[in-house]
Each structure stands twice: as structure tokens, then as C-alpha cells.
């Protein structure tokens, strides 16, 4: 299955044009050209687990190099950043992620007697589904509410994924071409810099 209805390369091409302001170009190109990342907050084993979880929440078989979602989370937790609020039932973010990822590890063992990373994609999905449904086994879920943890993890990785220029290209979003403004904005009205869908 094709990853997108929209032609490949549109956003990358747009970014080199004068249709994009300097501030916008700088933000998007930093994500497009992100260098390889070494975790600084998570230990290597937990980071590997996080990457394996991210690969199921955002499977990207259509991309030779997947959009990496773990670095932004590792960086945020290292810096102590916040989005302005937290569910009161959740421990502070750093603790919540350590506990929650530990819970996924524990649930994988309880359900399939195996490390999460070594499970088949279907088994991994079954573990994650159980966490989302608050049905996952494991003591960790006594200290961090499974459903809220899953929601927070998913929401954060989703933000990171759809902030990436290639994910924005995938959904046909070209709002980053912000220099000229839009004059054709009604139903079925597009401008030349808006790609047509192939379907």
C-alpha cells in the first residue's frame, strides 16, 4: 500500500523555494536533516524498547529510513520540558516514562514470556492494545495508570511524527509554504503549490 496519495518530494522541493519564510525553513530543515542521535536520558536498553514501541505505534514499512520518534522524547525529558499540564493521576513525566516503559517490558514477559523487542509485530501490538485497554498484566500498572500512560506516550509521538516534513507531505499538507498567503481557500479550490492527490 502506498504511503501517501500525494506525490513524493513536494515538501522537500518547496523548502528550497522562496515560498517559505526563513523561520519556517529553519524549523523544518532541522527535522529533515536531524543527525544520528545517542540517547542521553534513557539508558540504552530502555531507549531500544522505546524505539520498538514507536515502531508499532507508527509502523513505516514504506520508508527506507523511518522518521525517528524517540530522540525528541529523550531530549525533552533530559531538558525537563513540559507541554504545560499533566494528569494529576500521573507521576512526574520522567518517572512516568520509566515506570510505563518498564510496565510494557513486564507485560510482554507476562503475556508472551519474552522481551518486547523480540516479539512478533502481532504480539507487540497485542501488548500495546492491552496497555491502552488497561488490561495489561504487571505490577508497574499499579503505580502508573496504563490508559493515561498510553495516551500520553501516543500523543507525544504523534506530535513528533506529524511535525516532520515527510509526514506532512504524506497527508498533503503544504501550509509551510507561507510567503504568498492563500487566495483560493474555498471548497475544491487549490493553488499551484498545493499538490493534487493521486486517487
Amino acid at each position: 500500500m502506498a504511503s501517501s496519495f500525494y506525490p513524493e518530494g513536494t515538501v522537500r522541493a518547496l523548502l528550497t523555494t522562496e515560498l517559505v519564510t526563513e523561520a519556517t525553513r529553519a524549523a523544518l530543515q532541522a527535522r529533515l536533516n536531524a543527525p544520528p542521535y545517542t540517547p542521553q536520558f534513557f539508558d540504552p536498553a530502555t531507549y531500544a524498547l522505546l524505539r520498538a514501541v514507536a515502531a508499532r505505534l507508527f509502523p513505516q514499512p514504506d520508508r527506507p529510513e523511518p522518521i525517528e520518534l524517540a530522540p525528541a522524547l529523550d531530549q525533552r525529558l533530559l531538558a525537563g520540558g513540559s507541554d504545560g499540564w499533566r494528569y494529576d493521576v500521573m507521576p512526574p513525566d520522567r518517572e512516568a516514562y520509566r515506570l510505563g516503559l518498564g510496565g510494557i517490558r513486564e507485560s510482554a514477559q507476562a503475556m508472551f514470556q519474552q522481551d518486547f523487542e523480540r516479539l512478533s509485530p502481532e504480539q507487540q501490538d497485542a501488548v500495546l492494545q492491552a496497555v491502552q485497554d488497561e488490561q495489561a498484566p504487571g505490577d508497574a500498572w499499579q503505580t502508573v495508570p496504563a490508559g493515561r500512560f498510553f495516551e500520553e506516550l501516543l500523543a507525544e509521538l504523534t506530535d513528533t511524527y506529524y511535525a516532520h516534513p515527510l509526514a506532512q507531505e504524506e497527508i498533503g499538507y503544504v501550509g509551510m509554504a507561507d510567503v504568498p498567503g492563500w487566495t483560493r481557500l474555498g471548497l475544491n479550490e487549490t493553488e499551484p503549490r498545493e499538490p493534487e492527490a493521486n486517487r
Partner: protein
Amino acid sequence: MPDEEILEEGIVNPVETEIQDPLLRSLVAEGAEPAGTIVPQPAPLEIPLPAEGVDCIVIGTGAGGAPLLARLAMAGLKVVALEAGPWHDPKKDFATDEKAQEYLFWNDERLSAGQDPVAFGKNNSGIGVGGSTLHYTAYTPRPQPADLHLHRDFGVGVDWPFGYDELEPYYEELEQFLGISGPTPYPWGAARRKGYPLAPLPLNGAAQLMQRGCETLGIRTSPAANAALSARYYQEGVGWREACTNRGFCQAGCSTGAKASMDVTFLPLAAAHGADIRPNSYVTEIERDASGTITGVVYEQNGEQQRLRCRHLFLCAGAVETPRLLLLNALALSSGHVGRNFMAHPGVQVFGTFAEDIRPYKGIPGALISEDTHRPKDADFAGGYLLQSIGIMPVTFAGEVARGRGFWGQRLRDYMRQYNHIAGINILGDCLPHADNFLELAEEKDARGLPKPRVHFTNHENEHRMNAHAEKLMRRIWEAAGATDIWAFQRSAHVIGTARMGLSGDDAVVDANGRAFDVPNLYICDNSVFPSALGVNPALTIMALALRTADKFLESQK
């Protein structure tokens, strides 16, 4: 040590010093302090005390602080505004990118409790010179007169201490000053003396679809009133502001100056009249003399503590930071109502997928409005709501899909590929005050060592019924417009209350003029003083209250 560095006598510093050592803390708590224990004394504050004070300090530069600041400066008073965040140059700094613009949100962590925990940050809280108006959608409908007397009409909530006629001249002034674009005549509410100064902004795809669905069902709609310019407009103290280019990023900061955020309207006006606006100035303490009169504030600026003296203080930090500052400083607490009456607008959104190309990122997000639901005939609840179309930015939308639908994996990617074909409608409805909805200080501290705010919020029967009524109606509108895969995202929008205005210091924090009942030179002016939530976006009313509070204050000084 030079004399001016000695803490002035008679200044009360009510912030309790936290004892970090657990053993010592338990000893002090037991009141049994054994001989020989050295109790660490807090180091005396060494803050340069300026030789002069100012007439007025305004804390916060959003919709509450900025208009007030301008009014006071224009009256010739010496005024300083203290803003916690930086001063941006939107034309150069603002990216058309949601992630890059996150610095516009108040991102210090708040704890959200209750059965319907409220999202803060980008949902409703701002920082920077201009406050939340930097990322408000600039929807500027007026409330209808009945919104101010919910108790009189339904026997619930409380009424405002004055009627709509008190605010009307200010609405008119603001619409003309900001250059609000909107329909004339306006189809709902009281008759108006003046129409909007500019024609409405164009309808985007989502607005056209909502119009289509409503037409089929016999619901009246209209292009919305919005404080972005549909044509260039001349503004005193600012000059010409250019028309909106339909960039669609109002909620992540306007880079063209077309949107009437405070940094391109009231703040330059205030500065032109001598107001001193200090960015990166985070107020931690409000100081008083022995009689309880405020003498000044202590704030942190670029890592250094500063003190500024004043004759009058105007607190305009919003419905979370305003009560937090009052609680931290044990100030104006005699009514017992600081932090109470926390309300959040019911804001359920309904999305649908359409065959048509919508491209939701273009144009002002909510170009179409209906107020036919202000007092629905078949309502089983008090108050009412309005309807607005939504074209939504991609990252915000994806986050709502993740949280609201719980989609992940291939299913999420498949759904998100429909992005260009998805439109939404949302409501903004009245909310009642409830005893279990309140703000308090948590044990947990922020990076400055100050207690984080914890906000308890649970929707009650009235909000549930209103949301259910609205969701059903919005689903019908989308079905009539030809949508498939219709779903609802439950949310609370703006936060309101926590330092309400009223006729008596027994059940309100400030009087009808915005002045604290129990502190002679403290005024509060922001969304925290609203006695009821009003079924409309709050910014225009916050600004109207700001101008009125300034006028009442100036009259009292004559």
C-alpha cells in the same frame, strides 16, 4: 552594605520558606526543637530598592493587562507592565510550524485533576508580550445581554454585578479600534449602534460545508466576527496594519500583524504614551505594609531579582496564574473564593470526512458562526452555546485523533491521510460554577521552587446535557452536509473564574469595578473575574472589562 539594600521595614513576606531537610521538618512540625539544633535562617533578600516607585504596575500583557495599560498611560500615569515571557518579532521569528511555535504557550506544568482534567498549554494559556492573544483565534463575538444574568433567568450560577449596557460602549470601541472584521448587521443579539468597521474574512472549505449543512436543517449562519483585518487598517500608535493573507495559523502566532494580538495594538499604543513594558519579568512576591496596602512587587528578570514599588497593582495574569499569585502571597483571601468557581467552556468538536478538497490549513480556522443555539427551544439545560466551523492545523488535529479516538499504528496513518478532506464544527458553551471545581496550590514545586497549581474540574449535569445536545446537532449538520466517519472530540476550552467579581466580599474577590474587597490598592482584570463563563469566546469581554476597570480606577483617582 549600602542602606538601600536593606529590606525595608514593615514589609510582609508571607511566602512560607520551605524546609528541605526531612528531619528538621519533622522536628519543626512536632514543635519539639531540641536544644543545640541549628535552625537555618533564610538569607535576607538583597534586592536593589529603586529610589522611585511608579503609579501602577500591571502584571501580564494579555487581553486584560494590555488595554488597561494603554488607558492608564494615556491618562498620564507612570505605569510599568511586567510580562513573564519574551518580546517577539513576529515577522522575523514566527514560523508557520506548530512545533516551532510552542514557545507561545504557558508551558510551566499545571496538574489537572477531577473527572474531566483540563488541558492547558496550547489549549488556552499563553506567555510573551501579548499573552494568550499571541495564539488566540481572535474570535470576537459579543456575549448576548442574557449571558450576564443566568441566575435571574434559570436560577443557577450567579449574575454579573452589572448589565450588558455597561460593557456595550467598550465592545463598540474595541471593534472600531482593533479593526474587527464581521457582518453588518449582526444577525443575533441586541441591536447595535455601529456595524463592524471591516467586511468579514472569506469562508474556507470547512465554513462552506457547515453553511451547507446548516442551510439544509434551517439553522441560520453568518461569517464570524474576527479580530483579523480583512483590509489594511490604520491604528493609532502603530500605523498601518496589513490585511490577513489567510495563512491559517492564528493559533500558532500571526506573522503578518493582521491579527489584533496585543503586541500589535494596545501595547504599542501604551508604549507611545510612555508605558514601560518589561519582558522576561516573572513576579514572585507582592509586598505589603502593616496596614495591608500593597507597596510593590518582587520579580525575577533574566535570573536576577528586582523590586519595584507602586501605588496601585493590577493583576492580569489569567485565571490560573492570578489566583496562584494571590494564594502564594496570601493576598485577598478573606472571601474564601480565590481559586474557587473555576469554569471551563464546553468545547466539544465534531469532525467528518468529505469527498471535497478542504485543505483545512487555509483561512481563519473558524470563519462561520451560528448563534441560533444561544437559547435552544428544546434545551434541557441552563444557558446555551454557539457553533463555529473548524479548519484545523495538522499536528493539533493528529493529537486529538490520538487522544480522542485512540487510533495508532496503520489505522492512525490511514485516517490522517484524509486530512485534506476533514472539517470540524465546535461549540463554545456556558459553564456553571461548581463547588468541586477549583484551583489550589500543590505540594509539588516548579523549577523556581514555587508550588505548582492543581486544577480540579468535573463537568456536571448541565455541561453534560449541553455537550450531548450540541454533539447531536453537529452530527446532524455534518450528515446533512454529506460527511462520513463522523466522530466527536470531548474537550474543555477557555478557563474562567477563580477570582470572581460580585457585589459582596462574602462571595466574591473583587467588586464591580475590579477592585479587591480586602486590599485597597489591588485590582484584578482578566478572565478570573468573570462571575459566569458566558457562552462566547472570552477575549473581547476581557478587553472590555480592562478598559472599564481602567476608567473606573481613573474616576476614583479624580
